[in-house]
């Protein structure tokens, strides 16, 4: 991995944890998704300022017996997929204050 990536939850989504999974609805088109337990961990930790690699190391490798580099590769692919659906924002720079639609609107 050459560069650090930062991930943040997209502001215009609705989400709720239901059991081990998370239900997410993208505002555009009212498309509904469920995130599995691993994606849920990534989603919950996506604060825009913690690097994706650090999220994987702290929250995923500590929960599951996985190799760090392999887990980061999987997490990047998962993040790209979520970004394509308008659920997550990915950047090479920290992403500040993007988790709240109200905050987003006030900026």
């Amino acid at each position, binding site marked *: 991995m050459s560069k650090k990536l930062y991930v943040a939850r997209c*502001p215009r989504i609705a989400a709720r*944890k*239901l059991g081990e999974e998370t239900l997410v*609805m993208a505002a555009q088109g*009212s498309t509904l998704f*469920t995130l599995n337990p691993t994606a849920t961990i990534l989603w919950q930790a996506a604060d825009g300022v913690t690097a994706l690699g650090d999220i994987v190391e702290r929250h995923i490798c500590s929960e599951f017996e996985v190799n760090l580099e392999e887990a980061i590769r999987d997490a990047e692919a998962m993040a790209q997929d979520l970004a394509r659906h308008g659920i997550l924002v990915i950047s090479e720079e920290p992403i500040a204050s993007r988790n709240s*639609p109200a905050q987003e609107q006030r900026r």
Partner: protein
Amino acid sequence: MSLMQEMGERALRLGVPFSVHLDLTYRCNEQCVHCYLDHDDHGEMTTGEIKHLLKEMADAGAFVLTLSGGEIFLRKDFFEILEYARDLTFCIRLKTNAVLIRETQAARLRDLGVESIQVSIYSHRAEVHDAITKVPGSFRRSINAIRFLRSQGLKVVMANVLMTQNMRDYQGTHALADELGAKFTLDPTVTPMMDGDRNILNLNVSEYELHDAFRDETLIEDVPEFCAPPSAPDKDSMDSLPCSAGHTSCYISPYGEFYPCVQFPLSCGNVRERSFIDIWRHSEQLKEVRSIRLRDLSSCSQCAHGGSCSRCPGLAFLEGNMRGPSTQDCEKSFARTGIPSVNLLSKKQKKDQASPPRLVQIQLVPAITGRRLAEMGDAVAAVAS
């Protein structure tokens, strides 16, 4: 099964209040002839109380939040409440007459990621709509608002209620919704006032109009299937839940009263006195509602329509017994299939027994009444055989 239905079933297994309907106010800037609410303010929850409640609801796992009224935009703190709800990542659905929505409000709703906005439109003709809302100019303002909302890419649902005043207009209203890029829904039932007053039920359309509406292919996708005679309820049907009220959904009034549904005014507690989750988990009233299965319903369990009827437990409750039938739904089942329910037959029998002997044996009756009564007789024979 859609993902939303699948999540609803998961919420049921987990005991989560997946969907909450919160009325922010009963005040309204329209005075619709069919409205079931008392519009006076009897002490609405404050901004702080509503925010506290929203946090409790999010913590309890509520995902879909319907904000309604009264007219929600009459609350000065509406956008503050909405912003807070979106910060809690609720999926927000709004119900409004949209009279107070202009370009600015529509843009804010878009920016806040509101999922959909339901706007009440009762006719494609301004004079009919305005006569129902009793507000001249309300049609023009609501339609303009729908245009503003659509121009922001927002999903709009145009909600119509079928009643005597507009029964000839629903097709034109549907066409107007199509023209504006809005979805269209038609509710064929005017419901009693929340205090139980049933006078507004006089606004319901007759059985004949309902019969015709249920056979309109512009409304009903598969008319033969929709209007097919019901098959007798099987064991699975007997064990089924009447509806989601109190199971995965609930309603909170502007005064904090907790009901299973907006149409089911059985008070289960007040969120000003007890926490939302405490009421959801421990209310004796909710436990009773949750215990009811089709097999427990006095006449519906014996009825051919039992497995397919749209029986509303709230309307049954308003009729006096939450385990009893909802006559309005019986009437809909009859209009749909031509087969009277056990409840309708019982009412007819009681009425016949109560009628005094006629002194005049021959009388003129409208031809259509005779035809419909004959059909009812045939249907009774069909059920009996």
